[in-house]
């Protein structure tokens, strides 16, 4: 989606935002990894300041910093008229209210499908190669 239309569309109308956490010392979300962390929140439920920050995250996503070793990276995905739009940002970019939507879960002992994480230095606004998660439910072990 062009930035002009993105910047003019109200965040409250963005609907559901999917969030997934990658990396960390435990290697969340890696190929074959048996641990992942994901969830979603509704854009309209955010306060004004967090809505403004969410807009900026999608308008001007900054790459996850490579100086912080073992830190998490976050994938945020919104559905637009042109399909899903995903940005990858550092933990410090993601307010607590958004991170609270995440649930860590263990996967069964079988190979996990390839994941879309392009690594620590992803290109901006790269569309995801997978469908976002259907629910934010926590698969309790």
């Amino acid at each position, binding site marked *: 989606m062009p930035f002009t239309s993105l910047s003019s569309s109200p965040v409250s109308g963005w609907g559901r935002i999917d969030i997934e956490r*990658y*990396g*960390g*010392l*435990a*290697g969340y979300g*890696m*190929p*074959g*990894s*048996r*641990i992942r962390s994901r969830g979603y929140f509704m854009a309209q439920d955010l306060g*004004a*300041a967090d809505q*403004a*920050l969410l807009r*900026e*995250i999608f308008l*001007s996503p*900054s790459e996850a*910093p*490579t*100086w*912080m*070793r*073992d*830190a*998490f990276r976050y994938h945020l995905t919104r559905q637009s008229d042109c399909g899903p739009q995903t940005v990858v940002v*550092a933990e*410090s*970019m993601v*307010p*607590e209210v958004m991170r609270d939507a995440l649930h*860590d879960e*263990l996967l069964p*002992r079988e190979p996990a499908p390839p994941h879309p*994480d*392009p*690594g*620590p*230095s992803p290109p901006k606004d790269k569309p995801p190669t997978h469908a976002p998660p259907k629910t934010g439910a926590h698969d*309790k*072990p």
Partner: protein
Amino acid sequence: MYRCHCQLVPDEVLKRLGCDPKLSKEQCERAAYSARLSQHFRDIRQQTRRLAGFLLESHQLAILTENPEVTVFDCRETQSLPGLQVDNAAKSEDRSVQRTYDETDRMATFLRKEFKCNSIDGAGMTLMSSVHYGKKYNNAMWNGLQMVYGDGDGELFVDFTLGTDVIGHELAHGITQYTLQLEYDGEPGGLNESLSDCFGSMFRQWRKKQDAASADWLIGSDIVGPATRERGYTCLRDLSKPDGEHCLAPQPTQHAQLKPGEDPHNTSGPPNLAFCTACKQVGGYSWATIGKIWYHSMTTAGMMPRMSMSEFAAKTRESAATLYGKQSAAESAVDAGWKKVGL
């Protein structure tokens, strides 16, 4: 003390928020303050990295002490770093604080005694750690200046300070920062992670007085929580069997399996296996022979931010010959280790 949450939001974003008419005056002031603060901390981090590189090149790092000071801070379940400094951490009633102090101090002893290395920078740098970071936080990290440990959620993970290998792993990121200065993507990223796993594992074995044959070579075994263990996962990674089903994050075992853009915690599999294989072939304590070769390679190659795995393999073969002689058992073991992973 600084708010980590605000620290990395791009200045442009914060500046825009700082004059956004839709936000309250208080919110605008906070954003503007954060913009200024974040720039200061970014400057500090960049200067630290540049300084480390300059000192490494010019050998101008003055040795201030033979025994580095260890400091521990308490984040009190917030993400504000470094948190409040704990007085007399060695005798704290908080087990996380006391353990972090003790094990960090022992890691400094391990480095000094076994590698003649005075702290992570070779010049007695104070070792700073923050514990109780975040709420039920399932991670530990090195942020370029200090170690940071979460408490774990008590289900999937327990207190990250319970792992001596975790403490060794994070401290080793500091050693890499002051030696090879490896970047954190591609092969240099995988090497960076592997060096931390190797030093973390060696430190855990040193604490348990285990030799290469009796060690389990697991990473994160002591921080795996009850729910994770119930599922049959006993560790994050296994240096002796990176693709094992008992690993939460199984890894490739062959260099040829690595793909561009993968996470460093994935690509560290082959060098981890090479190190473990070499240690087992030589026998004895991992840090006594192969560990010294790895450390020699890290400290004599100079700054190599984009070092490839094959370059590091060549460097360790060279170091083995330098330290133990050509066609020595050590050189043969190092060669066998790298050949096992296709290098």
